[in-house]
């Protein structure tokens, strides 16, 4: 009988030896010695340097591009423009193509318009200056609410808003409208004793990975291409590259480097098709490495939002209805994943009446990319602020109010799924019991709490496990490890096979080694690859049992696998010394050949994740500067396979959220040019900005995973900005409703309060 993922269910009685410990990760030594190869760390013989010419205008028609002088420069081996890429029909691939190389128009400051490959970086830079682009500059629009005004500059004359009934014709910058409802929001608000309705704004920010995108492409005369790059999903890169370059998928081999941070920002390519086109033209390998300025101007960012959020509650603290109207910036092209927001923003509360409408809006900014729980933290900033206000109105403890309304197993969500066992209540109770929650506060300090939810994902996943002749294991995986998945996956294999984790050696295979793997995103990989490798291991164990039975000449059902050994199932079978994996592997040739297990699945059963953050801030009332004094993340991981990796996700996401809350934003001048395209002016949190970040891992097992785990990477960003806003409100008595809560903005709130204005 074949084993399938349906046979892999959580076993609460299982004794664990490896899962739950903290071994050193297999990629660790390479990372502390400088050996690990990241995107920019590859050099091929004859390799050229590629550089990209970018639009200095936020919105301009490209009348013509003259590359003749650049092509004539000694050392220049190829120049490409829009003419070097196939025309594609309207749709996703055309949008991707128009983003990595502008066609009729440049849509943002930094939009690629041409690229060169030369024998040195100096020559490549010189060549860029020789390219003459004739632009017709157009009026531009940056902000989401400006872009929907009737007189706003229009990016696409033929744009029609999808999802409007009746369909709203052009000209418009609204790409689409999506509405999600459950129950009857109007009836719910009619039952409410208290209604709070507020407006919130968030700014686009950048994922902020420290490794700029880099790739090396090598196109050969027989029409094959090899690509080395830093990506969260080399398989989806391959699929999209084939589409935008009109190549066969099998002729593109993508090898993923170690990934120097992505957080969603390396789920879509920018330079890779350009490098391939340059290599094709030059017949030599081409490397492109982005500068930080290019990273900030032309990759990412995260969607900014404008949102109106309304919630109703009875006077004893039961939520009766929720409503939201949400506007998302997507840059010039659709793809913000904004539909996550209306489906996730209220999900964790036992609400029966919800109406949430989202709009996706184009403007002259870089095309947005994913970031941890794409589009959800921005709007939870508002939801958790409104809930905090509701708690204050009835004088209820903010965690108690959330507990009063917490969704539990059996809750039917707005997106159609019904919750299985979930850990929201356990998470809230642990937060309330944490010493942080009752610790005394100092002068000018305030405390805030907020919660978050993420669906967690599964999807296409493959793995191949080979037992070597000495009984150790090599493991081929298909997902880039964005920080900690590899070790956790190896631990599950070690647990299954009853061997040490150091006996499992993983590699991430290139796109030609395994079947398709969905991108590393959505908190899916440790969950999904966990299922795939457990399935692979159990298939291998079945073969090990068959081989042992053959060696002993007993029936296959006369043996069992326990603690890394095959043993007779009972004394009736015979008196045999247990066989280790190595004992059986040694005889593999005689018993039927090499022993392996592999899996190609669509992983299902991802269990939703919930978190609650507690933060203390101190506000400098002279300057408006906010200091994070103490931070605690409480989150349900289902089961922490490797607790350090889980803690690292909680802590890192919280730090990113602190940056988003307090500092990070894109600043544009009046011509639509980004003014802070560097790490000095686009300031992400540094070590001296932060305290230690305490973590509490809650474990409410996911019954649909063999070790009970839930994804953990997205949730810990979701509540952060709201928790900090709530803490600032607690400290100064005024609630910030606009990100970032930077010193000038907080100071203005303090001054307005001092003047006695009523901001409610």
């Amino acid at each position, binding site marked *: 009988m074949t084993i399938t993922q349906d046979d892999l269910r959580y076993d609460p009685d299982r004794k664990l030896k490896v899962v739950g410990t*903290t071994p050193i990760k297999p990629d*660790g030594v390479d990372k*502390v*010695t400088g050996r690990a190869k990241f995107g920019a760390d590859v050099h091929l013989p004859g390799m050229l340097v590629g550089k990209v010419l970018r639009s200095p205008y936020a919105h301009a028609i490209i009348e013509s591009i003259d590359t003749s002088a650049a092509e004539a420069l000694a050392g220049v081996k190829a120049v490409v423009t829009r003419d070097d890429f196939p025309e594609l029909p309207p749709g996703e691939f055309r949008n991707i193509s128009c983003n990595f190389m502008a066609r009729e128009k440049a849509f943002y400051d930094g939009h690629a318009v041409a690229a060169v490959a030369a024998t*040195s970086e100096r020559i490549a830079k010189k060549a860029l200056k020789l390219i003459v682009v004739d632009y017709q500059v157009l009026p531009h629009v940056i902000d989401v609410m400006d872009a929907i005004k009737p007189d706003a500059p229009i990016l696409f004359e033929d744009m029609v808003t999808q999802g409007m009934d009746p369909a709203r014709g052009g000209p418009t910058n609204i790409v689409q409208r999506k509405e999600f409802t459950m129950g009857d929001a109007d009836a719910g608000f009619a039952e409410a004793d208290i209604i709070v309705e507020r407006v919130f704004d968030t700014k686009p920010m950048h994922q902020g990975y*420290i490794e700029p995108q880099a790739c090396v492409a090598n196109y050969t005369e027989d029409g094959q291409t090899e690509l080395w790059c830093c990506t969260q999903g080399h398989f989806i890169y391959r699929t999209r590259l084939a589409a935008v370059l009109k190549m066969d998928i099998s002729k593109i081999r993508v090898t993923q480097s170690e990934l*120097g941070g992505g957080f969603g920002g390396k789920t879509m390519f920018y330079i890779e098709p350009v490098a391939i086109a340059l290599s094709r033209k030059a017949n030599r390998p081409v490397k492109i490495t982005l500068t930080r300025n290019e990273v900030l101007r032309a990759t990412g960012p995260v969607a900014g939002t404008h949102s109106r959020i309304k919630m109703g509650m009875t006077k004893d603290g039961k939520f009766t209805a929720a409503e939201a109207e949400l506007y998302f910036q997507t840059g010039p092209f659709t793809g913000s994943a904004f539909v996550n927001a209306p489906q996730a923003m209220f999900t964790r509360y036992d609400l029966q009446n919800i109406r949430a409408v989202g709009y996706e809006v184009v403007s002259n900014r870089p095309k947005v990319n994913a970031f941890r729980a794409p589009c959800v933290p921005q709007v939870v900033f508002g939801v958790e602020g409104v809930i905090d206000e509701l708690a204050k109105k009835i004088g209820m403890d903010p965690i108690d109010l959330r507990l009063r309304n917490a969704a539990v197993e059996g809750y039917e969500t707005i997106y159609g799924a019904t919750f299985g066992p979930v850990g929201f209540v356990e998470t809230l109770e642990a937060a309330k019991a944490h010493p942080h929650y009752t610790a005394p506060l100092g002068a000018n300090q305030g405390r805030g709490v907020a919660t978050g939810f993420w669906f967690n994902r599964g999807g296409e996943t493959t793995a191949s496990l080979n037992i070597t002749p000495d009984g150790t294991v090599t493991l081929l995986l298909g997902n880039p490890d964005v920080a900690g998945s590899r070790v956790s996956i190896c631990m599950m294999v070690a647990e299954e096979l009853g061997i040490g984790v150091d006996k499992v050696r993983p590699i991430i295979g290139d796109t030609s080694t395994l079947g398709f793997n969905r991108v590393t995103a959505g908190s899916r990989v440790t969950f999904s690859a966990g299922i795939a490798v457990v399935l692979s291991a159990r298939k291998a164990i079945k073969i090990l049992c068959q081989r042992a039975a053959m060696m002993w000449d007993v029936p296959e059902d006369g043996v069992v696998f326990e603690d890394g050994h095959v043993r007779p199932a009972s004394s009736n079978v015979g008196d045999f010394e247990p066989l280790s994996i190595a004992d059986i592997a040694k005889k593999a040739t005689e018993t039927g050949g090499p022993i392996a297990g592999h899996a190609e699945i669509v992983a299902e059963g991802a269990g939703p994740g919930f978190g609650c953050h507690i933060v203390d801030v101190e506000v400098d009332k002279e300057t408006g500067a906010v200091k994070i004094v103490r931070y605690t993340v409480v989150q349900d991981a289902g089961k922490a396979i490797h607790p350090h990796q889980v803690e690292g996700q909680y802590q890192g996401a919280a730090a990113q959220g602190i940056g988003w809350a307090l500092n990070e934003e894109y600043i544009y001048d009046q011509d639509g040019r980004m003014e802070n395209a560097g790490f000095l002016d686009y300031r992400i949190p540094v070590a*001296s900005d932060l305290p230690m970040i305490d973590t509490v891992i809650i474990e409410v097992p996911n019954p649909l995973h063999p070790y009970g785990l839930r994804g953990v990477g997205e949730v810990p960003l979701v509540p952060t900005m709201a928790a900090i806003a709530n803490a600032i409100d607690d400290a100064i008595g005024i609630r910030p409703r606009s990100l970032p809560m930077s010193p000038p903005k907080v100071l203005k709130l303090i001054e307005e309060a001092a003047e006695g204005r009523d901001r409610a």
Partner: protein
Amino acid sequence: MAKSHVTTTVNGDEYEFLCDTEQTLLDILRDELLLTGTKEGCATGDCGACSVMLDGCLVCACLVLGVEAAGKSIETVEGLAHGDELHPLQQKFLEHNGAQCGICTPGMLIAAKALLEVEPDPSETEIRYWLAGNLCRCTGYDKIIRAVMAAAEEMREVRS
């Protein structure tokens, strides 16, 4: 323009290279000497990923010209371990999971080593301010700071 001929010492080994005047020490290390352990995150001295020691001074290799390395002694992450023995900082980064994606790790290690050379017993606050020029986007710095504190403690014990 003619290139300059430069002789320098990297991790105790003598190297010679030809250098354009505008090439930085970071360009030279990575693209000419193929010592890619030192990382580029910004090339403007803001992220610390390219931290190296230059004649005993902690510098961003992106802010030093290649020609300035002439006659100097450079230490990079590739020189931290001795034989198969990792530096205590490397070992503690492993044990505390101080390296998540690992791109900032070489710079962090070099900067932390420079700190422990001048202050063997730094407080948490001193470590945080010393490493404020080394950006990390993965960890929230918590496990990095703990790894440095643990390494400092171990190095003090070895010394005493």
